[in-house]
């Protein structure tokens, strides 16, 4: 099998990614038809986490900066909304810009300090600075401290969009996700994005060519932080609640997991990752309270055997496997939806998926390792 570079633009990824986006856009319709408001809640979360993951991918996947403190911006965005609402300021025209500027400024500060270091020290420094923010939230006793703060009233757009309406909120998140993806696409394919990716593979060479690598990285870092702050705004809005737990370091870990699971440095990768992560959580946790005992090893297996994540599998010509996996996930969700805690139908779906994967494997072997 010829080795293709992972970053090669793959039509199949874009196709599947767009299809997934459109399917997500149809969720409110499905929720209305099936008369199930919970479905909307789940997928609102998927869409919001996808925005956060896409923003992390900009620096992690394209820039090679392993930020282990990305959840801090979710917290900052959320706290800005919560604190302003607490003081009776509900106009989105004030709340949202304050939250975004707050995220941007903190990303600037964190970036200024941490981008001087490399490798593991960068990971640790971003983690430490995010912990600072976390404890800041913990100590903010006027805003609930450890317990968090309930947001009494969602931000108002002056009648333009009603955020209390679940469908409007979902579509707002969805549109923002599409915009985030589009922005990322434009950034990555611009001169700026090329420098960023060049600095990932060889920063010394880029510096020698005359590019101020630090400034490029810092800019990307701030953009990613701001976009993640947007995810924070949406999280606070749809849960009506802020607490330090939303920026605990394990949340940052979750975000990294989503990006790597989906595929680093791929436009739609984080979307696949967030989708898979949250669907697995939803499905596995309905079978067993101890769902992480299954999820942990899955993560380990992905790291050990499926490098490049879901996107990588598609690009490497294993699109059949990746697609089967995604379709299985969808089928599992439907099964899970129809027979909530009965494991038999789910086992049947899993068996069918296993058979399909074996079939793909056999077909590939017969055609002499051609791409399936």
């Amino acid at each position, binding site marked *: 099998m010829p080795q293709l570079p992972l970053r090669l633009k793959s039509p199949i990824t874009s196709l599947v990614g767009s299809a997934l986006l459109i399917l997500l856009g149809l969720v409110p319709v499905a929720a209305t038809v099936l008369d199930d408001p919970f479905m909307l809640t789940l997928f609102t979360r998927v869409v919001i986490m996808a925005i956060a993951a896409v923003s992390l991918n900009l620096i*992690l996947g394209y820039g090679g900066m*392993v930020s*282990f403190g990305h959840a801090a911006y979710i917290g900052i965005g959320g706290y800005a909304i919560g604190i302003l609402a607490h003081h009776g300021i509900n106009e989105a025209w004030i709340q949202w810009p304050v939250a975004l500027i707050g995220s941007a400024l903190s990303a600037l500060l964190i970036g200024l*300090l941490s981008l*001087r*270091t490399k*490798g*593991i*020290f960068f*990971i*640790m*420094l971003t*983690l*430490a*600075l995010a*912990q*600072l923010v976390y*404890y*800041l939230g*913990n*100590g*903010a*006793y006027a805003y609930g*401290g*450890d317990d968090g703060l309930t947001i009494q009233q969602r931000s108002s757009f002056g009648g333009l969009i009603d955020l209390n309406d679940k469908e409007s909120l979902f579509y707002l998140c969805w549109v923002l996700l599409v915009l985030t993806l589009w922005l990322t696409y434009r950034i990555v394919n611009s001169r700026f994005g090329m420098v960023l990716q060049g600095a990932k593979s060889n920063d010394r060479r880029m510096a020698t060519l005359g590019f101020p690598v630090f400034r490029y990285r810092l800019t990307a870092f701030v953009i990613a932080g701001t976009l993640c702050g947007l995810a924070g705004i949406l999280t606070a809005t749809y849960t009506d609640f802020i607490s330090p737990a939303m920026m605990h*370091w*394990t949340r940052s*870990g979750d975000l*990294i*997991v989503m990006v*790597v699971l989906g595929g680093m440095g791929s436009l739609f990768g984080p979307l696949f990752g967030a989708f898979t992560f949250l669907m697995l959580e939803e499905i596995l946790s309905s079978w067993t309270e*101890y*769902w*992480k*005992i299954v*999820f*942990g*090893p*899955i*993560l*380990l297996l*992905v*790291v*050990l055997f499926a490098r490049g994540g879901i996107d990588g599998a598609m690009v490497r010509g294993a699109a059949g496997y990746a697609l089967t996996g995604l379709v299985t996930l969808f089928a599992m969700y439907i099964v899970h939806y129809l027979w909530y805690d009965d494991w038999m139908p789910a086992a049947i779906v899993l068996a069918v998926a296993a058979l399909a994967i074996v079939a793909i494997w056999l077909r590939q072997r017969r055609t002499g390792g051609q791409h399936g």
Partner: protein
Amino acid sequence: MTLLLVEQFLNGLQIGLLLFLLAAGLTLVFGIMDLVNLAHGSLYMMGAFFAAVLTEWTGSFLAGALLALPATALLGIVTEVIALRNLYTRDHLDHVLATFGLILFFNELARVLFGVGGMAIPLPDSLLTHFEILPGLPYPTYRFLIILVGLLCAGFLYVLVQRTRLGMLIRAGATNREMVGALGVDIKLLFTLVFGLGSALAALAGLMAAPITTVQIGMGDNILILALVVIVIGGIGSIRGAFIASLLIGLVDTMGRAFLPNMLGTVLSPADAGTVSEALSSMLIYILMSGVLILRPAGLFPAPGR
């Protein structure tokens, strides 16, 4: 005031030494195998749970503790052989992810095996006493024991790393792994041994801390971050650096918690001052770390060759 200062100094020393036990294993594994092991906190937790169960079973804290150490070392070795051995050549991001998966796994495993409620390790009566460390200053015997064990372990590690053949290989491995392998040392076995040693140290920290706090799910998650801070401040791979950094962190944290409430109490109500000072002293640690890294990007005592 001086007595309070001495007492808080001892508390800081005690926390610092517990942190050192955890950080020593972490820095060895990190320094020699270049492996970022987030699951080290899980071994700390599993060690505490093992000790709790074994103490219940044998009826003796000492026996429980002594049995929990090899049990956790074994668990660590099994984890290394099954899951982590294949990761050494990968980059740090893969380590972070895979061991993050292990954290999830171990936390749930502990929930399945030992229940959600957590456990307590009851101390024998002989350790529940106080004795006068200075005239007019009684100090709990058990906390004093922690300091003693911590110092003994630090001494043991010093001798092991500086004065034995195994220690020589460990130091050589931290400087240049490939060369040690090329000289005919069974590097795989060395790695596994070091991992087992690190796991036992983590378990020791966990079971020593357990009677003061409680044994609960996720108890390793937050202290792991502190241990990571310690090894980064101390310089990765350096036991000496880990020792100094953990004492530093322990003292900063304790002193912050002990004296900030009074200082803030002049401005804020007591309850608020408590909340704020707890957060503030936690933040002090991270400010300290950021400061060290900005001034000395490789930590205070970087191992040679890194």
